[in-house]
């Protein structure tokens, strides 16, 4: 999926800060990432609350190295469109990976 790589590349550029904007126009890459997100727009998307109720399970599947996107495609789709849920998932993964590492270590020692 080449277009997806392009969108991710565009997404990774943060929009410029307020003061830097000539006539408060919308930066090209912002509209591009919005337009790019249209390709993945589907009728049955779930919103943040439902994703929140599924996110712990989703993160555990990811932490086990399984294909969470295939098992829970609607959560994946939402994460692609929602920066807030995306950063919460990233932080949650960091927490449980650190916790599980210690847990494994403790199990081996003990």
């Amino acid at each position, binding site marked *: 999926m080449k277009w997806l790589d392009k969108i991710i590349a565009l997404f990774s550029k943060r929009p410029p800060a307020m003061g830097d904007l000539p006539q408060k126009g919308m930066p090209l890459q912002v509209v591009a990432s919005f337009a790019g997100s249209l390709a993945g727009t589907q009728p049955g998307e779930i919103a943040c609350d439902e994703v929140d109720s599924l996110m*712990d399970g989703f993160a555990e599947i990811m932490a086990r190295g399984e294909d969470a996107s295939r098992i829970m495609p609607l959560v994946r789709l939402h994460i692609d469109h929602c920066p807030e849920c995306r950063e919460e998932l990233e932080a949650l993964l960091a927490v449980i990976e650190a916790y599980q590492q210690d847990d494994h270590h403790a199990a081996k020692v003990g």
Partner: protein
Amino acid sequence: MDKRTNADWLAAISHAGDDRENALADLDDLLRKYLPGALNRWLASNDPRFNALVDETVQETLLRVLQHYPAFEGRSQFTTWVFKIAVRVALTDLRRRRWKNISLDEIEAGWDEEGPEIHVAIDPVAQPERLAEQNDVVRRVEAIMNDVLTPRQREVLVMVGVHGLPGDQVAAMLKTNRNALYKMMHDARSRLKQRLEAEGLTTDEIISAFSQQ
């Protein structure tokens, strides 16, 4: 580390008493041990506000655990569910701190009741090699956005896209919530997708028109 099962956690927490106090103390320890490492990407751990953020997050998380444990469905480990609550509390707080000085009045200055017009900034000095046909596609997409999207949807796009506000802050400013905002912007994407398809504009065409050489 603790070896409680989900059932052990729930049994301990569901009744006031020593078991509950011990379980909460253990959760307190776990949060203080594992949460900071995930937050220092957003706030440096040597920042004077860092410890207060962790304290407040832990307190709020334990309150929510007590409030919401009956809704825990066992789809994950109980500790993962608690971590999830903590992460959401902390990051929501961080986003609010970062953006609290921007007022809606400031952003809305100069808009009429029709909401903002989407105007895509093409800087001819920075991008002299842009082709005329690229710019044509950009103007077409811009016109379609102004035609198809509601004033509210354009407003949200400008707040997120131009001002860089996170969705939960936009929701708070517009007196709605993050969930409703997502639905609103899903509707915006759906409308726009339909219209662009009807006008024969493909995603690839749009992306190449919007990329900067």
